[in-house]
C-alpha cells in the first residue's frame, strides 16, 4: 500500500475531496495498464526463450509440409493390365552424386566405388572425384544395397538425391505396346509416350492387355521363330466383338528398363508399325467382298485349270489343282487364280471400297504413337485388283489383318483397336461392312480350311477354330520382284467359329524349312501350329470348356459336298 500512500501524499496538497479520489483512481487505472504491459513483456520474453532454447530444434511444421508438397513432383502413374497386374510403376530410388569439393581421399574412394558399381571404371570415377565442379552424377537409380555400401565408405563428398525411376516388373513381356521412358522419366515410345500427360499427373492407366495371354502369345511366337530359325515374328489376340487388344507381340523384343541398350531391330514395333504383304490371309477379305456382292451358291466354280495371265504377268497356284474349283475349294486350297478371279468379278472400285471399309488402306486409329501407314499402290489398276485379292500389292500391319478378320467373323461389324480400358463396358460397333450371311459363310469357309484345307495343323479339338493360312514372299532386297527364299508365314484365325469370341493372328518372319517340317517353311507348317499352341494354352487360362460338336453339325459341314476330296 505504500504506493497509494505516496500518491496520496504527493497530491494531498493540491487536491482534496471528489477531485482527489478521481485523480487517484486514474492513477490506479494507469498502474493496471502498466502492470499489464510488464506482464505481457515478461510473457513475450519467456515465450522467446521457449522458442529459441526449448523448441528451437523443431522446424516450423505448419509451413513445411505445404511448401514441400509443391516441390516434390508427383510420381508417374502406374500402367496395369486388364486384371490389375502391374506392367509399369515408378519407384523412389537413390541416385549418387559427388561434390568434389568435400572429397578427402579421391583415389581410395574411387577404388571402393568401382567395386560397388561394376559399370563404372576406376579411372572414370577418379576423374569425376577430383574434378573442379560441385556436382557430378556417379550412378543413378542405385539399389538399397549399393546405397548402404556407399554409406559405409564414409566419404563426405558422396551424397544422395532421391529420384523417381520407372520400373517394368514384367520385363520384356510387352515392351512395344508399353513403350519406355528416358532417364528423366519422360515417355518416349508406346503408351508411355502417348499418355505422357495423364501419367505425369500421377494417374494410373489400365490396358486391355491380359498379361497371361500376352505371355502365351509371346512364348509361342518365340518358340515358332526359334524352331524355324526365323528373324522375328509378331502376333495379336483380339476380342472379336469389341476390338480390345488382349495381347500384342513383336519379336525380337527388349526389356524396357534397358531400352538404351536395345538394338533398333529389337525396338522396332512389327505389330503396329511394320507393314507387310501377308499373301493368302487377304483371301478372307476378297472372298468376303465377293460373297457380299454376289449372293451365289457355294458350288459356283472358278477356272483354275491353268495359270491366269494378265499382260506379261502370270498368276499361279502354289497348291495347284489344275481344274475348276468351287468357292470352298478355292479357299481351302488357297488358290491364287480363283481368288484373283473373284477379285476381278467384284471389280476394282468395289474391292477397294471393301478394303477401305475394313480399314486396310488407312493407318490405324490407335493409342500407341507407332502406327504404320499401309502401303497401297499409287495407281490401282486391274492388275492390282487381281494381286491384292490374294494379298500381294498391299502391305499392312499385322494388327490390320487381325482387325479385318474380327470384322469378317463377328457378323460384319467394324471393330476399332482398343488398348486402353475405360471404366465402362466397351460398346459393340454398329457399323456394318458385311451382312451376317456373308459373315456366316466366311466362318464356315475358315472352319473348312482347318478341318480339311491348308490349316489342318491349327485344329484344336473341342474349340471349333477356323482361319486362313498365308505364305507370302517378301519383296526382293533390290526392291524388284519377290524373293522366293524369304517368306512371311502367317495364320489368321478365330474361335469358336459358330460365334467367335477371339481372333488370333500369328506371323513368322523369314522361317527356314526344317527337317521336321519336311523342308517346308509355309504357313501350314510354321504359323498354324503356333496358332494351335496359342489357342490351346488360352483355353486353360480363360477357363473355356471344350465342346464336342458332331461332325454333321460342324459349321463347315454343309460345304463338304462342294469339295472334291480326291487329294485328301
Amino acid at each position: 500500500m505504500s504506493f497509494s500512500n505516496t500518491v496520496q501524499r504527493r497530491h494531498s496538497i493540491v487536491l482534496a475531496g471528489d477531485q482527489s479520489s478521481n485523480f487517484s483512481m486514474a492513477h490506479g487505472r494507469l498502474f493496471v495498464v502498466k502492470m499489464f504491459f510488464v506482464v505481457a513483456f515478461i510473457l513475450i520474453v519467456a515465450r522467446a526463450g521457449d522458442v529459441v532454447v526449448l523448441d528451437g530444434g523443431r522446424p516450423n511444421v505448419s509451413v513445411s509440409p505445404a511448401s514441400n508438397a509443391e516441390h516434390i513432383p508427383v510420381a508417374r502413374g502406374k500402367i496395369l493390365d486388364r486384371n490389375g497386374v502391374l506392367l509399369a510403376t515408378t519407384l523412389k530410388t537413390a541416385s549418387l552424386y559427388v561434390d568434389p569439393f568435400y572429397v578427402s581421399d579421391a583415389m581410395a574412394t574411387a577404388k571402393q566405388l568401382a567395386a560397388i558399381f561394376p559399370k563404372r571404371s576406376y579411372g572414370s570415377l577418379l576423374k569425376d572425384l577430383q574434378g573442379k565442379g560441385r556436382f557430378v552424377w556417379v550412378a543413378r537409380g542405385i539399389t538399397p544395397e549399393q546405397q548402404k555400401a556407399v554409406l559405409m565408405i564414409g566419404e563426405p563428398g558422396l551424397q544422395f538425391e532421391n529420384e523417381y525411376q520407372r520400373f517394368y516388373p514384367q520385363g520384356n513381356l510387352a515392351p512395344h505396346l508399353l513403350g519406355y521412358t528416358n532417364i528423366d522419366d519422360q515417355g518416349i515410345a508406346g503408351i508411355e509416350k502417348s499418355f505422357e500427360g495423364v501419367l505425369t499427373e500421377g494417374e494410373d492407366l489400365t490396358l486391355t492387355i491380359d498379361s497371361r495371354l500376352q505371355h502365351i502369345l509371346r512364348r509361342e511366337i518365340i518358340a515358332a521363330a526359334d524352331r524355324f530359325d526365323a528373324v522375328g515374328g509378331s502376333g495379336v489376340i483380339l476380342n472379336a466383338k469389341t476390338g480390345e487388344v488382349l495381347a500384342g507381340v513383336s519379336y525380337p523384343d527388349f526389356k524396357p528398363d534397358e531400352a538404351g541398350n536395345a538394338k533398333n531391330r529389337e525396338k522396332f514395333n512389327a505389330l503396329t508399325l511394320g507393314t507387310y504383304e501377308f499373301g493368302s490371309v487377304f483371301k478372307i477379305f476378297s472372298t468376303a467382298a465377293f460373297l457380299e456382292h454376289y449372293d451365289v451358291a457355294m458350288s459356283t466354280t472358278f477356272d483354275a485349270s491353268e495359270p491366269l495371265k494378265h499382260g506379261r504377268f502370270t498368276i499361279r497356284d502354289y497348291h495347284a489343282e489344275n481344274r475348276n474349283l468351287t468357292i470352298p475349294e478355292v479357299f481351302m486350297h488357297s488358290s491364287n487364280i480363283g481368288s484373283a478371279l473373284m477379285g476381278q468379278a467384284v471389280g476394282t472400285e468395289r474391292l477397294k471400297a471393301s478394303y477401305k471399309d475394313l480399314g486396310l488402306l488407312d493407318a490405324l486409329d490407335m493409342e500407341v504413337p507407332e502406327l504404320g501407314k499401309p502401303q497401297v499402290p499409287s495407281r490401282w489398276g486391274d492388275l492390282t485388283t487381281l494381286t491384292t485379292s490374294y494379298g500381294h500389292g498391299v502391305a499392312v500391319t499385322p494388327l490390320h489383318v487381325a482387325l479385318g478378320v474380327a470384322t469378317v467373323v463377328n457378323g460384319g461389324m467394324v471393330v476399332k483397336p482398343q488398348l486402353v480400358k475405360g471404366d465402362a463396358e466397351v460398346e459393340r460397333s454398329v457399323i456394318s461392312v458385311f451382312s451376317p450371311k456373308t459373315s456366316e459363310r466366311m466362318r464356315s469357309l475358315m472352319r473348312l480350311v482347318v478341318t480339311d484345307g491348308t490349316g489342318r495343323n491349327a485344329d484344336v479339338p473341342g474349340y471349333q477354330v477356323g482361319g486362313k493360312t498365308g505364305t507370302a514372299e517378301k519383296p526382293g532386297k533390290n526392291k524388284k520382284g519377290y524373293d522366293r527364299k524369304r517368306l512371311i508365314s502367317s495364320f489368321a484365325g478365330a474361335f469358336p467359329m459358330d460365334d467367335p469370341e477371339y481372333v488370333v493372328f500369328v506371323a513368322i518372319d523369314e522361317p527356314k524349312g526344317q527337317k521336321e517340317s519336311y523342308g517346308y517353311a509355309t504357313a501350314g507348317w510354321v504359323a498354324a501350329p503356333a496358332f494351335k499352341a496359342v489357342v490351346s494354352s488360352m483355353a486353360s487360362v480363360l477357363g473355356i470348356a471344350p465342346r464336342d460338336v458332331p461332325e454333321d453339325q460342324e459349321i463347315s459341314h454343309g460345304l463338304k459336298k462342294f469339295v472334291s476330296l480326291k487329294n485328301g
Partner: protein
Amino acid sequence: MKRFLSVQSILVMAVAIVLGAALLYTSQATQDADGVLADLKSNIERENEAIALLEAEWAYLNSPQRLEKLAMEYYGVKTPSASQMMGDMEEVSLPFPVPIDPQSVGGMQAVSYGEVQPTASDVAPLPKVRPVR
C-alpha cells in the same frame, strides 16, 4: 463513490484473459496437431513407397515367365493344353474315386484318390526328385 475498477472493466478483462488463454491453448494445440499431421504424412508417404516397392516385387516374382520357368524346373510341370481341359467333372477318370462328403467343400464334389489322401498339413509336399536342369 466510484470504484477503483468498475464491474464492467473487471468483466471485460476477465473475458480478455480467458480468451487470450484459450487462444494460446488453441494455437499450441494446432501446432502440436500440425506436428502429428506432418509425422503422419511422412509415414504415409513412406508406407506408400514401401507398398509401391512391394507391389513391384510381387509383380516381378509372379510374372508368368518366371513362374512358368520355376514350375518346370522344380515340379516338372508343363503348361496345360486344351486336350487336358474337361467340360464336365464326370469326364475326369481317376483311380478308385470314392466320394467322401459331397457337402464338404462349398458344394463341390470332393473325391478321395485311394491311398493318396490329402493331408491337413499347411506345407506343400516337397518334390521327390531333384529338378532336372
